Structures are given as structure tokens and as C-alpha cells.
């Protein structure tokens, strides 16, 4: 970061009429993502009247409020005050986060672009599986589709571009890779990300008491399972797809 950047960030801006955004950078970085997660946890803990909801994007914390009940100036002052309380880039991640282990098949016909992704990363298929299945990644944000996480940061070799053409349909539970991130798809959709792994987890469960499985800040490992093990998991019909979680201490 240059001096100029340090003066510029963090920054508070309005979003539309009833939103305000505290941003910790203009590019994705681990400290900016951590700052956003920590700052949102502090906003939630503050429990200010007038804040109707808060959320995080990759490097920002968003709050929505009713400007006719709580003026923009008041909300901005509250956010500025909280910002000044500490160095959020050095903040600890929030409590209560969980570590998930979600079994994945890497490659095979279930995830047909592993080889292509490995080549782009300059790795053999074997090394690619080793790297992807042992990288502990964080839910940096959830978006695009309900419950669908962006996970990172993968080792530097995975700074591979998205493909030019779109894949017409990537299935639910697919694990796709680009720009040092995974997306774990919560719905079947077209995508430009390369399909390297497949899981059996269902991330969005509208009928359940916990409709959204992952939360921003959670960490995830995708241990490799064989095709046969994966079919057994899938046949069991468990929406968790064999995933287990523990609270990070």
C-alpha cells in the first residue's frame, strides 16, 4: 500500500438512498476482507437503533437504514466513530466462525475442467488436486446467488483468468476456480469459472430452519474423495453432502 492509499482507505460512502458502505480497499486482499468481516461484527454487536441490516462484500461492510428516521449524517457519524476505535486491518476475525470439511471429487467426468485449470496454473493434475484439496480457504463473501460463497485465498499459482466463453450450465455443488478463489455453486447456472471439483452439499435450503449453510468468515477444506465414495455420499441423500463442521476456537 502506498501512503496515498492509506489515507484514502477506509472510506465511507452512501449506497443509493438508504445504504452506507464502509470500504477497506479497492482490490481484494486478505487484510481488507478481514477488516470488513471484523467491522461488520462490531456493527452487529453495537446494535444501533435504525440499522435495519448489515452485510459484507469482499472488502466492505454495508448497512441499510431508514434515512427518514435516522439521518445520513447520524449513521455516517456512528460509522466514523466505530472506524476510529481501532486499526481494523489488524483486527481479529469474528468469534463463532466454523471450519467446514466438505468432501469433493476432483476431476473425473463430474468436474471436467480440472486438467484445464491445472494446466493454467502450471501444475500436474496430481499436484493440482493436492493443492486444492488441502488449501484452507475463507468465505470472503456470499453473493450472486443465495448462499453461494466466494472462497479464498488460494496459493498464487491459482491466479488464473476466467475462461473467455461461458460454460452453459455448471451444476449445484460444483467447485470452480479462478483468480485465487473458489466459487461453490448453490444453484445450477452458466459461469465463466472452471469446474475443477464436485461436492454434494446443498448450500441454500429454503425449507430448513438454517436456510443458508455457510456464513461470511467461515473456513472450508475440500478433502478429496474417490468417485465411489462420492456416489455413496450422494446416494445417502444428505443435504450436507458428508460435510462436517466445528467451531474455530
Amino acid at each position: 500500500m502506498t501512503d496515498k492509499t492509506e489515507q484514502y482507505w477506509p472510506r465511507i460512502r452512501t449506497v443509493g438512498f438508504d445504504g452506507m458502505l464502509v470500504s477497506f480497499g479497492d482490490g481484494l486482499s486478505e487484510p481488507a476482507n478481514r477488516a470488513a468481516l471484523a467491522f461488520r461484527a462490531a456493527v452487529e454487536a453495537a446494535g444501533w437503533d435504525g440499522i435495519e441490516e448489515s452485510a459484507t462484500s469482499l472488502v466492505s461492510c454495508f448497512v441499510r437504514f431508514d434515512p427518514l428516521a435516522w439521518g445520513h449524517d447520524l449513521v455516517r457519524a456512528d460509522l466514523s466513530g466505530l472506524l476510529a476505535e481501532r486499526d481494523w486491518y489488524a483486527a481479529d476475525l469474528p468469534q463463532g466462525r466454523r471450519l467446514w470439511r466438505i468432501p469433493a471429487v476432483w476431476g473425473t467426468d463430474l468436474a471436467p475442467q480440472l486438467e484445464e485449470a491445472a494446466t493454467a496454473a502450471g501444475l500436474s493434475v496430481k499436484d493440482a488436486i493436492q493443492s486444492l484439496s488441502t488449501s484452507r480457504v475463507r468465505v470472503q463473501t456470499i453473493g450472486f446467488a443465495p448462499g453461494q460463497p466466494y472462497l479464498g485465498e488460494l496459493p498464487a499459482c491459482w491466479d488464473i483468468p476466467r475462461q473467455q466463453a461461458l460454460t452453459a450450465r455448471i451444476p449445484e455443488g460444483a467447485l470452480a476456480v479462478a483468480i485465487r478463489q473458489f466459487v461453490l455453486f448453490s444453484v445450477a447456472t452458466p459461469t465463466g469459472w472452471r469446474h475443477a471439483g464436485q461436492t454434494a452439499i446443498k448450500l441454500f435450503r429454503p425449507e430448513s430452519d438454517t436456510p443458508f449453510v455457510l456464513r461470511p468468515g467461515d473456513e472450508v477444506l475440500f478433502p478429496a474423495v474417490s468417485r465411489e465414495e462420492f456416489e455413496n455420499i450422494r446416494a445417502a441423500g444428505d443435504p450436507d453432502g458428508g460435510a462436517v463442521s466445528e467451531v474455530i476456537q
Partner: protein
Amino acid sequence: MTRTLTLRKAGPGLSVQDMGRPGNLVYGLSRGGAADPLALAEGAALLSQSPDLPAVEMAGMGGDFVADCDLRLALTGAEMRATLDGTPLVWNASHDWPKGAMLSIGAARTGSYGYLHVGGGIDVAEQLGARSAHLGAGLGRLLSEGECLPVGADPVKEVGRILTPEPRFGGGEVRVLPSLQTDLFPPDVLARFQDTDFHRDMRGNRMGVRMNSDGPGFLIDGGLTVLSEVIVPGDIQVTGDGAPFVLLAECQTTGGYPRIGTVLPCDLPKVAQAQPGAGVRFRFVTLDQAVEVETRARATAKGLRGKVQPLVRDPHDIPDLLSYQLISGAIAGNEEM
């Protein structure tokens, strides 16, 4: 006794809508809800009930509906041709809907989204705290022929009320606030954006509508490498071909296209309701002006009940005039007063 209505014929864009399900942005789920929330408030005023009760939203085209018990109905939003057992019904008004009567609603004459409200509201089950269909998220779904919709209990009897709607069905001027990325656009592009006559594209849905114009687009250098950031309804994103795309109730929660501004919440129904081809102009306002405008709009929405008038019928519209008791209340002149 269960109260229901049945769809005998369904247009292609019918769904149950309410004020949406706020609070799930952090999980990637936008609020959703009616494309034109003001129409829900108008229907509620006509039926003297809560604006939170769900109604049937009709995109472009209605359908045929039969009441399975005596109901009250109100029609708001984009005006569509409507008849009850063949008799024309006044739009923006409330009416009795007797058991067995067929309500036929045709294509929109002006505007895009019509609303059918019933006394007691459409009583489908809640999902994640609301009863609206969020089609993009796979919550609820489009309504189809043969479907039977539950209707809530209705303690009110009153019908025959009419309301003059806030004008919003033919496009027009739409007020915009600068937003996160407005300063990525050079001043000359922002000026041209405000001076351009846009026309709502033929395509459009609950996620958003595209605005077409003659002349060059509004794409900026580096506009396709902006970091993904939070999206709110009303955001105007400039996509790869340079056309502005106004995001509506079912928008994504995050996105990487640069946004030139955000439409004020009270002007968003005007965007949603503009019919294909309708002219739209965008004008930037300041935050202070926006607060003023929104304050007035909220007062208007709150005061809708006070603006409801009795529906005076033209005798020509009453087919069985002879069956009406027209002289009740008349006096002979010699009664003791």
C-alpha cells in the same frame, strides 16, 4: 371454512408478491417483493387492509380466476382489461366477487405490472419470513393454470371504492442519486446520460430492465475490471455493450459492472411500470433533495386511505338496471318529519 380462488387460465408472468423479505443480503438473497410496492399500498387502501398482505402480480397479462367463495377484490398497477362474468370492471377500484364468478383479466393497456388483491390477502405459506415468490432464488414459482390459491380471513365488507393512482405508467423523468461508482464516469458522460432520451427495452423482468438509446453507450475505460461490490435495487449498471440496466426488486446482491447512479426508491415503480418503448429520462438529485422527495412520497403512501372515494357507477354500465331498487329512500312528501 377454507377460502380459495382458482386459476382457470394463467398469463405467463403471474406470481404472489408482498413487500419482500429484507434482512438476507449477507447471504446473497435480495429483498424481492412486488415490482411496484406502491400498487400493493393502493390495493390495501381500497380494501381497508394491511399493505403487507400478498397479492397476485401480473406481468403484462392477467388470466381467468374463479372465486370459490364470496370474496372482495381490488385491481391496481398497470391497467388491464377486466371483466367479472362479462361485465367490465373499473381498474383502481374494489368490487364484490361473488362465489363462482369468473374474473377475466387481459393484457396491460399501459404499464407493465397489474395487481389483483383480495380481501384477506393471498394466504400462501411463508418462506424465510415472507410469502412473495423470489423467482431468481427459486423461492415460490410462477402461478399456473388449475392452481388453487388460499385466501386469508376478511373481516371487512366494504367495496365500491376507487382511487386515483400516482402517475407512473408511461415512463417520464426518473430521479437518480450518485452512488459508489458514479465518479468513475467522466463529467461529459454523466451530462450525456442526463440528456439522453431512453426507451425501455422489450425485454425486462423482476431483476431489471434495460434502457435503450440512440447514439453511443455509456461504458467507461476500465469499467469491466471494477471489484464486485454490493448492489441495491435501483442501481443503474452499465453492462458490456454500454446500455444502462436498472436493477429491480429481484436483483443480485453483488456485482462487478460499474453503476452510474441509483434510482430513488419512490421513482423505481416508474421504471418497473414503464411499458416496452416508453420514454425515460434520468436526472441527478442531491441527497438532501432525495430526502425531501422520499419524505413526500412516504406521506402520500400513508395517506392513500384518505384519498379513497366511493365508486360512482355510470348507469349505462349496469346491465340489469331494472333489478336495482332505485327508489329506496325516496319519500312521498307527506310523511311526518
